[in-house]
């Protein structure tokens, strides 16, 4: 089996990229292949990269408070491109009161500020391996 492959990006206009870069480095050290798209990526660009690179997980990071809308855009784009089986995970300043709604929308895992680094890495990797098994 090939190593788990994850696309990471920041949608919307938020520039806080400390967290997503730390996650990228930690995933890479844990053996994953990470495709980091950088800032201000549209839902279409993120899903396109996920399709092109045949990734196991899509990870996005939002610290501006706009997560509900941006996640909605991404999930709609994912369905439209027929990539519904690729799990989407979200990190950032996400109030606990939004987590349930995000899960209901179809986000596979939410890692709010304060999540332990290794817990986030394990969470992404286990989603990735589950995705590989179900293919």
């Amino acid at each position, binding site marked *: 089996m090939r190593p788990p492959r994850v696309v990471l990006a920041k949608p919307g206009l938020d520039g806080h990229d400390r967290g997503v870069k730390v996650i990228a480095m930690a995933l890479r050290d844990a053996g994953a292949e990470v495709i980091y798209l950088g800032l201000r990526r549209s839902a279409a660009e993120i899903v396109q990269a996920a399709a092109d690179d045949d990734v196991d997980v899509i990870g996005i990071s939002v610290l*501006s408070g706009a997560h509900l809308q941006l996640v909605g855009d991404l999930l709609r784009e994912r369905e439209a491109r027929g990539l519904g089986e690729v799990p989407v995970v979200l990190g950032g300043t996400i109030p606990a009161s939004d987590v349930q709604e995000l899960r209901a929308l179809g986000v596979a895992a939410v890692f709010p500020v304060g999540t332990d680094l290794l817990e986030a890495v394990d969470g992404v990797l286990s989603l990735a391996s589950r995705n590989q098994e179900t293919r």
Partner: protein
Amino acid sequence: MSEDRDLPVTTDSGLPVQTVYTAADVDGGLEDRLGLPGAAPFTRGPYPTMYRGQLWTMRQFAGFGSPEETNARYRFLLERGQTALSVAFDLPTQLGYDSSHEQARAEVGRVGVAIDTAEDMVDLFDGLALGDVSVNFTINATAPIILATYLIAAERQGVGFERLAGTLQNDILKEFLARKTYIFPPGPSMRLSCDVIEFATDQLPRFNPISITGYHAREAGCDAVQELGLTMASAIAYSEALIGKGMAFDGFAPRLSFHFATTLDLFEEVAKLRAARRMWFRIATERFGAKDPRSGRLRFFSGNSGTTLTAQQPLNNIVRSTLQCLGAVLGGAQSIHVMGYDEAFEIPSEEAVTLSLRTQQIIALESGVTRTVDPLAGSFFVERLTDEIEAAAGAVLSEVEAAGGAIVAIENGVPQRWIAESAYRTEREIARGIRPKVGVNVYTDDPGAEGPTPALFQFDEGIVERQIARTAERVAARDVRTHAGAIAALDAVAREGGNVMPPLLIAARAGATVGEMSDVFRRVFGEFREPNPW
């Protein structure tokens, strides 16, 4: 923990710390390295009497939703004893998009106030006398545009430009480095930043047209030593660019201001702030030949570190912020922002922001630390650390210069890599428990036994449509020919050279939107995309 006890004891930046310091640990010539407060080399402070003469400016960074909502928050803060204003703009405003733009809608009013036209700026300061209140603007890529809208608001209040006091962040280099709200490539971005400084030097004598900032690089992950070295590298890059524009160093340097983070390693932070003043004095005099003593007198704003705050046990953040504010005061800050204890979740609630202001007031009025200037001077440890940080930051500055100076190094992503690697190191140390965080990796709550989440700020979703509708009305009401002429004139100056501020003032007065003015620059200068860090 047994293995960790064998690790050398260091500051957060990794400088070694001895068990005890004595006079023998401080190099000779200390009096020359210190001077007196208000005198060269300004190690002890920019002013002779410091807080005995005037307390620091208490300036809580605030903005959300529409201009009216933010105006109400400003009145709330001023009524509670805040002494100046600090505007947070939403991301569309920072990135030159009107609220109606497709890429803007999710972000309108989220992390700051939405400003589409000069009329919004008029509303933002409604009833707040711009001749009396100093205003800080955290704005960079669109700094000249936002300054123009502010000047129109002042004009509308009948306040002459010469009376305006405040600071425009206008430090585009640190956007590429760390904060990431850049729009245009580095070259034209530097031109815009320098145009603002040139215009302000001529027309805004009480206004700081730039705040050269290490804060964001620090928040993005670098350590105190790197923060200082990178800030000085940027200050040199701006100075060289302005000199290249034909300006005299002593003409602009007295109005340069700085912005540093103050985090939790109390003595290292105080030493860093003292070292910063001495370092800038040396650069100003030795490198740029400053004759005016004010050119080498570093003044700074201190922001607490948001990244030191935790989502776990959020009330602990009040204690963290208090220590950081104390560090800024002991380090001689001119103005201070204290983070809200709830900022790991949302922008601060009224309760949280009041507590931040009260933190400043208690330190100012009850702790007694303001009674004498630079109270830690002469401490064997603090003086030794001040010298070591200056030397280590000087080494960082040399590395940046070896990489081609701030602009070239940033274009090549060199310091960005230092910052990301340092952030990763810190997070791994927290995850492994080497770096203690109370409530996170020590003294944690049992799952399910966490205290209540604070009552968070609630965002009003309705503001987006209201803001879009109001801007549409204002756009419909403007004189079409005046507006078109102003946009064409701005385009010509952007293309042909010359200072962009005069045509921006005309365009803002003619009702041009922030998005329209930004689009002129986008057409002429293009847009920047950061190279992949790996």
